[in-house]
Structures are given as C-alpha cells and as structure tokens.
C-alpha cells in the first residue's frame, strides 16, 4: 500500500444492505493483519450502526446511508451516516435497554458498538441525521 487507504460507500436504507455493508467493510479491513476477533468486532459494530440508520433514522421513510472506512497509522476508523430523523437525546439513547421501538427491539445496538470498538463518537441533529464514528485501534501491519 503506497498511501493510506480509504473507501466510501453509499446505498439505500434496505435491510438487505446491512449484510452488504458489514461484509464490504470486512473485506476492506482484511488488507490489515488484524485478528479474526477484531474483524468480527468491526462487523458487528457496522451491522448495528447500519441497522439503526435503516430502522430508526429512516423509520417512516427511505433514504441513503453513507459508510466510510479509513486506515490510519494505528487505527481503523468506520463512519456510518444517515440523513434521517436524528436522536433527540444521545445520552438516553446510549442507556442499556433504551429503545424507541420496545415492542421489537432490545436497546442493545449502541451498547454493542461501545463495547466492541475502542472509540465511538455520535453526533446527531433532529430531522437532519445521525453520524456514528467508530475506531478500532491496533498496531498497523499493512500487508
């Protein structure tokens, strides 16, 4: 790899694309010498963030989801962004078991993201959208 590698991916908020998104990120990440466990952590975190954009961000609508990944010296950074309804209270959303769709969901998605990734930052604005930046740190050994 001559330069720092990155990728940007865009797709509509269909549930079938959750698998596509996490697999694409995993294929991109596999150029790094990371463990199977780290790769699985990233896949689950991406799956949660993209699922949230599909079911919450675009709950009563359809829209586009932006996914990007970037390899830096010692970290793999994934960003999932939607232009959906936004989160009014992020601290509340992060609580274990908190969900706005209690009849269907368990409120574990954000918990998993924080558990599996090393750094997480969520920014959101009501009716504007939500952006989740997730970082996995490691000693980079590019192949």
């Amino acid at each position: 790899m001559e330069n720092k590698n990155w990728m940007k991916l865009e797709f509509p908020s269909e549930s079938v694309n959750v698998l596509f998104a996490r697999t694409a990120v995993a294929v991109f990440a596999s150029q790094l010498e990371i463990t199977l466990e780290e790769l699985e952590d990233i896949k689950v975190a991406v799956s949660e963030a993209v699922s949230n954009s599909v079911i919450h961000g675009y709950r009563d609508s359809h829209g586009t989801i932006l996914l990007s990944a970037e390899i830096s010296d010692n970290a793999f950074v994934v960003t999932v962004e939607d232009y959906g309804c936004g989160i009014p209270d992020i601290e509340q959303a992060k609580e274990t078991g908190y969900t706005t769709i209690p009849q269907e969901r368990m409120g574990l998605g954000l918990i998993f993201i924080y558990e599996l990734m090393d750094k997480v930052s969520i920014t959101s604005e009501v009716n504007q959208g939500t952006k989740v930046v997730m970082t996995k740190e490691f000693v980079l050994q590019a192949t």
Partner: protein
Amino acid sequence: MLSSKTVDRALIISVEGELDLHTAPPFKEYIDEKLANNSDIKDLVLQMEKIKFIDSSGLGVILGRYKLIKERGGRLIFVTCSPQVYRILKLSGMQKIAYFTDSVKEALSL
C-alpha cells in the same frame, strides 16, 4: 436456512447463515408458528453450528422467544456456538439465562 424437529417437549431448530435485521424476522415467525401450533413444547434448543454471524437484531429475536418459553416453564438451550457467536451472546448476558451445550443429545438430557 431453517429446519426443525420436536423431541419430547423440546423444539430443536437448526439455523444457517447470518442472523441480522434482514433475516431475524423470518426466523422469528418460523419459531413463533411452531410454538403456537404445539402448546406441548417447553424447551427451545437452537443448533448454532452453521450460524456465521449474529448481531443485536438476531439476539433480540432469541431473547423474545426466551420470554415466550419461560412462560411455559421451558428453557433456552444453545448447541455448538462458534467462539465468535458465543462472544456476542455473552455481551447480552445470555450465559446468565440460557444453557450452552455441545450436542443435541446433551441438550435433551439436561
């Protein structure tokens, strides 16, 4: 992707593939129909060997089914989870409420 049989009062389900937002709903319906059609069923035995991936959407369905069979006095029993799947199940505290075994035989003799 889904198959099942009933032995004694246990519903044994074999799942294949990846359990996420897209595949969790048919998985849920499949189990709920079996439970609705046979009120004898108590235990739910999930053969996880061919599950390649699970996230909180898949877990949510399993936790929801756990509530249903608990009302019937049944138990939730996992058979041969991969290390990756087990890690994710543990994140949700599943090991506190469910049983983990290495074979259906072992699951049925619990």
